[in-house]
């Protein structure tokens, strides 16, 4: 067996096992740890397919930034006792989740995807690398949305500060 095939089977098996862990662990910290494991395994899958940029971003953003926030929230909110099974919600969530799964699987297997037709053919990617190709598009054609993303971050930061700080009432302000 080739190394990439071995890598695929190892990573995908572990990803599926950890995904089961996310769903079935009663202790919420274990569930979050399984989530980290799933995300790292998925990024491993990206690496075996030669998409090193997405693999690295997966680790940086999901496994590090987002999951750390989960842990932070769990540890700061004391009443957070994850009630694992609330049957009345599963009446809706199971069929909907199953439907979305079927839809995604069907679309993927059915091959409705368009094959790669842009300027970035696999030869070009071989020559310049993923990072350079993505960066070129991000800073030329997609410059405008990229700049707007900075505004979104600014707004989110202002909002966090306003909603987090103590309420000052007008009367108190007048007294001081």
């Amino acid at each position, binding site marked *: 067996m080739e190394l990439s095939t071995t890598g695929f089977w190892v990573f995908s098996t572990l990803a599926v096992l950890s995904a089961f862990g996310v769903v079935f662990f009663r202790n919420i910290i274990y569930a979050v740890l399984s989530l980290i494991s799933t995300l790292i395994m998925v990024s491993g899958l990206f690496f075996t397919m030669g998409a090193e940029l997405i693999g690295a971003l997966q680790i940086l953003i999901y496994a590090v930034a987002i999951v750390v926030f989960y842990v932070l929230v769990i540890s700061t909110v004391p009443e957070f006792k994850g009630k694992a099974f609330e049957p009345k919600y599963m009446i809706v969530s199971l069929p909907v989740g199953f439907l979305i799964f079927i839809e995604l699987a069907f679309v993927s297997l059915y091959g409705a995807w368009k094959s790669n037709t842009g300027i970035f053919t696999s030869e070009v990617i071989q020559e310049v690398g993923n990072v*350079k190709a993505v960066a070129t598009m991000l800073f030329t054609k997609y410059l405008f949305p990229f700049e707007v993303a900075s505004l979104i971050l600014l707004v989110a930061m*202002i909002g966090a500060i306003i909603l987090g700080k103590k309420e000052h009432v007008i009367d108190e302000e007048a007294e001081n």
Partner: protein
Amino acid sequence: MSVLQEIVAGLGVPNFKVLIPEIIILITAFIVFVIELLTKARLLITVVTAIGLFLAAIPTLNMEYGDLTFYGLYIVDSFSLTFKFFLILSTFFVVIVLRPYLEAKNTYYGEYYYLILFSLLGMMMMVSAPNLITFYMGIELASISIYILAGMFKKDYLSKEGAFKYLILGGTGTAVISYGIALIYGRTGSFDFVTIANTITSDNLDVGAVAGIAILIIGLALKASSVPFHFWTPDAYQGAPTPITAFMAVAAKISVFAVILRIMVEAFPFAYEVWNTGWALLAAASMIFGNFVALRQDNVKRMLAYSSIAHSGYILAALAAPSGAAFTALIFYSLVYIFMGLGGFIFLSAMERQYNWSNNINDFRGLAKRSPILALFMLIFMFSMLGIPPTVGFFGKLGVFIALINSDIWWLAVVLVVMSIVSAGYYLRVVIYMYMHEPQSKAKVNLSVGEAFTLAFMAVFVLILGIYPTVFWDISQILSSLLVAGIGR
């Protein structure tokens, strides 16, 4: 030369001239930001914001040449310019009534003003998006600012609850939209509306395309607060500070309707069977549910929130018919909804400053005896939302109704008429309480200049447009024909 160097060498400088309104709004937002940091001069903040909005509105009216700029990611045409003008106009009215309201509620923050401007900027991006990425960034900027604005009433539990629901469901909506965009990108290999329109045609509608369109419709329906994705609407509208509710119910919704129309017509013109059915079902559900639940509300602000869900239904019903007349009706109804919606919500915002007013229906008792003019204004807004002839709401509903009949969609037309009759139950209840009951208090009603001006402007405009709707109807017709002509450009 390598491929990358060729790409970079082929790029020119974007045409910044067509971006002047956006640039003015952005600069105003930063100026207000600095003023708010340095001084506590509240009047100055309002005045600077209003001047900035006024300056930004001028180029939307007299810009001569539109353009597709930023490498095909930003389009400035009559459609986007018209909607930008009306968005700026409605924001202007919200800004001038905001300060008295906040001072009466003892919770003033200068941050309101520049968050409103950032949100407006996001909406302006949405209406001029020829590309799914621009649209996505615009809707994110607009909704994140509004989540914050809705929750800034920090003493009030309802405001927090509403903002929290809005945050969670709005975030879900954004996630659903990005899933839909991903499916469409996988199917067509492009984010540009033109390429998508050329790739998805009626003979190759496969699972990928239909699933992408359906999921995108669900996400957009959540943003337009259409039933069954409306759960955030009543709580968020009731909890938010009332001028902000007016902003959410009018500006945010109008921009969502505009962007829905542009995406459906320009990106999926040949898949119209799919979105016709989807929007028809959503519109029927919104009309039926919104109107029947509104009947049972005693809080007028919450009643108007449900009425705004019903109005989403009336407006989106036009998308059930794939014809120019239907698109015209959608644009016309969205534009005139600005006047009724702002009128209704700003009336509540002005009344909330009065002594002992809780937005309950009982507070409306005998309002006609306390302040005849104000009661007359509310009567005009209620009649217009109900759709009684001398007001403009009638023509909005008539346009949608005729478009539906011309396309032989009788069942939806019947639902629209029947539900309009049902809505008389709660709109007229307000009128009856105002005119046929004895007042409970004799307290005089005090309005600020901005509030009086806004209410008078909206009421007069609703009447003028009701008698002479041709101007707006012509504008809508031109815009819809431009939109249809722009398919596959």
